[in-house]
Structure formats: C-alpha cells, structure tokens
C-alpha cells in the first residue's frame, strides 16, 4: 500500500507534498513517514494519506479557449494603456487621482 506524505515545515505554513512511503498498514505508514520526512527536523507535522483516498481531478477542457478564465488570459497592461489613452492621461503619467 502506498501512502502519500505531506509535510509542514513550520507552524502556520501550508502542507506540501513531500513524497510517498510503501507500508503494510497505518502504524507502519506513520512510522516510516516519521523517519523518511521528519527525522532531520525538517517538518513540524505530517499528513499521511492512503493514495487511494486522494480524489484526483485532472480533466480540464477549454474547447472555446475562454482565456479570460485564466490568470494569464487577461492582460491588465493593455487594458490600462487603452484606458489612459481614452482619458487623455499620458503613459506613465503616474498620478491617477
């Protein structure tokens, strides 16, 4: 059985995927994760999750290329330039107030 291990480097920060361990049951998975990802003081906490319990979502269809849904699909720079031209403010004209 494969368990995926997530580790937290410091209190308060997000857990990140660290790797996985093969183990016959939960007790072994805990112990092996502890040794593999915690023995050098690199973690303050671990999440140990059976691989089968992870719900994987990987189907992302965007047939019509709706790029405005994407973080990189909306160029603020170009829109700003147009807006400035319409308002008659020179480019780099700083104060928008």
């Amino acid at each position, binding site marked *: 059985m494969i368990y995926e291990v997530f580790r937290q480097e410091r209190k308060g920060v997000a857990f990140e995927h660290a790797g996985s*361990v*093969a*183990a*016959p*049951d939960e*007790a*072994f998975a805990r*112990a*092996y994760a*502890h*040794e*593999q990802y915690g*023995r050098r003081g690199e973690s303050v906490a671990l999440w140990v999750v059976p691989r089968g319990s992870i719900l994987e979502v990987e189907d992302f269809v965007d047939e019509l290329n709706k790029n405005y849904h994407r973080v990189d699909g909306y160029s603020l720079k170009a829109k700003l330039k147009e807006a400035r031209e319409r308002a008659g403010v020179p480019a780099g004209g700083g104060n928008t107030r």
Partner: protein
Amino acid sequence: MTGCVAGSKSLSDFDVLLHIADDELVIGWRDSEWTGIAPVLEEDVAFSSIAQNEIGHARALYQLLSDDADALAFDREPAEYRCSPLVELRFVPDWARTIARRVLYEAVDELRLERLKSSPDEAVAGLAAKIDREEAYHRMHAEMWRERLRDEPRFQEALDQLWPYAVAMAAPDERDELSRRFKRKIPSNSLLLGKEHGNHADGWPALWEEMTMVRRSIPGAAW
C-alpha cells in the same frame, strides 16, 4: 581502562551507566548491520535511523562518564566492555530474531530508564529523560513489528530463544515486571548463567575487532 574518568560519580553509578552505554553502542552496531539490506527500503531507513539513535545515546552517556568519550567507547580491551550478551549476538540475515531482540531490549531499556529518570544526580536524570523521549519512538517501532509478526512461528521461536538473555540483561529487581509484561516465566539460574552483562557472546571479539579497527589503525590520531 583508558580514558579520563570524571570523579563525581560513585563506582556503582559509573558501572550502571557504563553498562547501559555499552549496550546502546553495541546494539546500535548490530542493528546498523541491516543498513542497505533490510527487508524493504522504508524499513532500511527507519531501522538505520534507530541504530544511529542508539549510538547517539551511547555517546551522550560516555560523555557523562568521561572527558574523552571516544577513548571510553573504543580504547578498551574486549573483556572490559560491560554490555549484555543479548546485544552482541549477530543475527543478519535473520529478521525474526533481530526484531525479537529489539522488542525485548526496548522493554528492559524502558525499565532501567524509568529508574534513571528519578536519579538524584540531575545530569543523569536529565539525560535519561531525553533518551527516553527518543526511545518512545523505538518502542513504537518494536511494538508494531511485534504485532505484525505475532503469529509467525520464527518470531515466537526467536522470543523463546532470547528470553533468558533479556531476563539476564535486566537488573534482578526488574525481572518480575519484565516477566509480567511478556507473560513468561523467569528462567532458572542455570539458564541465565553467562548471559548477564559483563559476560560475552561468541560473536563479540569479531565485532570488537571491526568496531575499533579504524580507531586502532592510527592510535592517537585526531579525526
């Protein structure tokens, strides 16, 4: 015995601590023989880490006893080591006996650490508490393997074989508690003969040779 010995401990305290330090050093050595060849990769890492911890405990104890921990650890003659025959036995490649020894060793070690934690000597009590916090993890590891191998005849045979060694390793007044924990009878004195600490198992001279080989290769070198 070589090595400068700190004068503040009474002889009997010194003997007890040296016995424990030697046990930790030697079981660390024996268990580290599994590095690279343990049954599965994850266990290889875990088991090697435990072995290293034990040697770390030995180092801390030697430092408590001497200004020169290395000299105390490595410059004695084989007959001067105070470890228990239980830790000297060589088991590679027998995993069942290796685990049976870990299970028994951790039980005896827990009993003696309990006692040391209430020592009037603060340095001793403090170190025992620190060591015990790491041993808690070793006990968890031993317990999960004990549970897993419980119905395995080779493991039960290994426990049968090693039980007298474990009892002999325990102090006489800890043996009843050990017997209760394992639900096993205390063996007769004739079965304990030669298994108490200070006696040595057959494999000991060869292990001592290996363990001190590099140190002896250039006496007095600064490493």
